[in-house]
C-alpha cells in the first residue's frame, strides 16, 4: 500500500511504468516481497549467499596444493596478522585458506546429503501419506525404528561399516535424516490429499504416481522447503561433529570440525586456532536457521502473528 502511494505520487515517465502498477503480481513475486519484509531472514540469506559464494570461488581465492594442505613448519602457530589474516595452524598452514576450502566440503556434503534424504523422504513419506492405512502403518513403524536412535549415532554406524569417504558420509548423513523427512512429507501430503483437485484428477483417471507427483507434492512444497533449510544446517553440523570425533573428513583435507579437533591440543597457548573454524560453523548454522524461520513465516501465513 505504502509503496503504491509513493509510486502514484511520482509522475510516470513511460506507458509501461504506468500500467505496471495495475498488473497483478505473481505468487512468487508476492512471496518474495513478503520475504523481504522479514529483516532477520534477509540477513540469513545474505550471510548464506556469501558463504556459498566463498565456497564456489575457493580455487580462485587460494591455492589448494600450495597453501591449504602444504606444511610450513617455519610459520607454525602464528597469531593473526598482515600475512596470515587469521593466523596459522600447528603445521604452519594458513587458517583462512583452510576455512575457505572447509566451506566447500561442508556445503557440498550438507546439501547433497539433504538431497539424498529428500528423495527417500518424498518416496516413503509421499507413499505413506497418500495411501494411508496399512501401507502407512508399515512404513511409519519402520521409520520409528530409525527414529529411536539419535541421528549422529545412525550416521556413525553406517560410516563404521562402509568407511568415511565423502560419498559414504553423504549417504550416511542423508539416510540418517530420511526418517524425519518422511514424517514431514507424510503429514504435508495427508493435509493435501483430501482436496477437491486431487479428487478431480482421480476422477478423470490419472494414475496414482501422477497425482502424487503433479498435484499433491507441488502443494506440499512450503513446509518441505522450510525443513530442507533447517536440515541442511543440521547436516553441516553433523559433518563437523563427525569430523571432530575423528570419524568424518580426515586430515590433511580441511574441514571445520577436523580443524577444531587438531587445533584443540594447542588452544591453551594459541586460542586463535579454534576461533575461526568454530565461528564459521556457527555463522553457517545461524544463517540457515534465520533463513528457515523466515521462510516459514513467508510460506505459512497462518503462523504469522
Amino acid at each position, binding site marked *: 500500500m505504502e509503496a503504491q502511494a509513493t509510486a502514484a505520487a511520482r509522475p510516470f515517465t513511460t506507458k509501461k511504468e504506468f500500467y505496471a502498477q495495475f498488473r497483478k503480481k505473481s505468487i512468487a513475486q508476492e512471496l518474495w516481497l513478503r520475504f523481504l519484509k522479514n529483516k532477520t531472514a534477509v540477513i540469513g540469506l545474505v550471510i548464506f549467499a556469501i558463504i556459498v559464494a566463498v565456497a564456489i570461488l575457493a580455487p580462485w581465492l587460494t591455492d589448494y596444493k600450495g597453501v591449504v594442505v602444504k606444511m610450513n613448519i617455519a610459520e607454525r602457530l602464528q597469531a593473526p596478522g598482515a600475512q596470515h589474516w587469521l593466523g596459522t595452524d600447528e603445521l604452519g598452514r594458513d587458517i583462512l585458506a583452510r576455512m575457505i576450502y572447509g566451506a566447500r566440503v561442508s556445503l557440498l556434503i550438507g546439501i547433497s546429503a539433504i538431497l539424498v534424504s529428500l528423495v527417500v523422504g518424498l518416496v516413503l513419506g509421499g507413499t505413506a501419506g497418500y495411501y494411508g492405512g496399512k501401507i502407512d502403518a508399515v512404513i511409519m513403524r519402520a521409520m520409528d525404528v530409525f527414529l529411536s536412535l539419535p541421528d549422529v549415532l545412525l550416521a556413525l554406524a553406517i560410516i563404521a561399516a562402509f568407511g568415511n569417504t565423502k560419498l559414504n558420509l553423504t549417504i550416511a548423513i542423508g539416510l540418517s535424516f530420511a526418517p524425519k523427512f518422511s514424517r514431514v512429507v507424510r503429514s504435508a501430503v495427508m493435509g493435501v490429499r483430501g482436496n477437491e483437485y486431487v479428487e478431480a484428477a482421480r476422477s478423470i483417471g490419472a494414475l496414482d504416481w501422477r497425482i502424487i507427483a503433479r498435484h499433491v507434492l507441488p502443494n506440499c512444497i512450503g513446509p518441505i522447503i522450510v525443513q530442507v533449510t533447517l536440515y541442511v*544446517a543440521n547436516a553441516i553440523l553433523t559433518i563437523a561433529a563427525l569430523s571432530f570425533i575423528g570419524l568424518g573428513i580426515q586430515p590433511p583435507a580441511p574441514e571445520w570440525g577436523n580443524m577444531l579437533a587438531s587445533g584443540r591440543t594447542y588452544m591453551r597457548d594459541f586460542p586463535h586456532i579454534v576461533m575461526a573454524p*568454530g565461528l564459521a560453523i*556457527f555463522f553457517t548454522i545461524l544463517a540457515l536457521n534465520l533463513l528457515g524461520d523466515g521462510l516459514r513465516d513467508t510460506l505459512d501465513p497462518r503462523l504469522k502473528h
Partner: protein
Amino acid sequence: MARYIIRRLLALIPVILVLTFIVFAILSWTPGDASTIILGSEYTPELGAKIRAELGLDRPLVVQYFHYIWNLLHGDFGMSYVTRAPVFDQLSVRLANTAWIVISAMILCVSVGIPIGISSATKPNSIFSQGAMVFGLMGVSMPIFWLGLLLILLFSVKLGWLPSSGLDNGLRSLVLPAITLGFNYMANIMRTTRSSMMEAIRQDFIRTARAKGVSEHDVIYDHALGNALMPTITIIGMNVGTLLGGVVLTETVFSIPGMGRLLVEAINQRDTPCVLGTLVIMAITVAISNLIVDLIYAYIDPRIRAQYGAKARKA
C-alpha cells in the same frame, strides 16, 4: 493406565530386534573384522581363522544374530572382542558417568530455559525479552563441541575456576560438561516455552480470568502455564535422543569415559558386541523417555487422561 504402559513397553521389543539386526548386518559387512584388529601386525590367516572361530564369527550371520538375541534376552550383552570382558560390566561403569552429565544438563536446561521463556513471553517487548530471543537463536545455532572448547578456554585456562577434563572433582567437574551438552537444548526449550506461552496469553480464557480479577501471577502460572507447557514437554522428550548424540561430543571435548566415548572406541575397533550394547541401551533410553513424556501429558492434560480411561474401559 498400567495396561497402556505395558503395551508401550512391549512395542519396544520389535524396535530393539530390528535395530540390533540392522547394526549387526551393517557391522558384519565391514571389511576387516575383529580378528584383524585384535591381532594387529601379528595377523596371519591361520591365527585369524582361529580367533574368528573362537569368537563365533565363522558362523552364518543369522545364526550369530539369533545367538546374540538369545543371550540378550537373558540379560547377557556378550563379551567384548577387544577387552574380553563382559560388555555389561563396561557399560554399567560408563553409563553412570553419562547419566550424571545428561541428568545435570537436563536439570540445568529445564530450570533455566522454562523460567526465561515464561518471563520473556509476558513482556515480549522488553530488553530482557529481546536479549533472550537473541540468546535463544544463538543457542540453537551453536556447535556444542566448539562451545565446550570456548568454556574450557575461559573457565579453566584463563580463570582457573573449573576443571577442564574428567569427572574426578565431583559437582565442580560437572558444570562445564552440563552447560555444553545442554546449551542447544536449553535454547530450544526457551524458544518453545516463549512462543507457546505467547499463544496461550492471547486466548479468551486468559482475558476472562483477568476480567474476573485473578491476580496476574495466578493468571500466568496457573491459567496460562498449564496450557502452554505441552509443546515444551514435547520438546524436552523429543530431544533426549539428540542429547544422547551430543554426549559423544561432550565426552570427547572433556575427556570423560562415558557411553559416547565407548561407542566411538568400539566402532573404531570393530567391537560389535560393544557397539550393539551401547546402541541398545541408548534406544531403550529414548523409548522410555518418549513414554514418560506421554505419561506426563496425561498427568497435565485431563482431556488426554480421559482418553486413556475410555480406552481401558473399552478393552
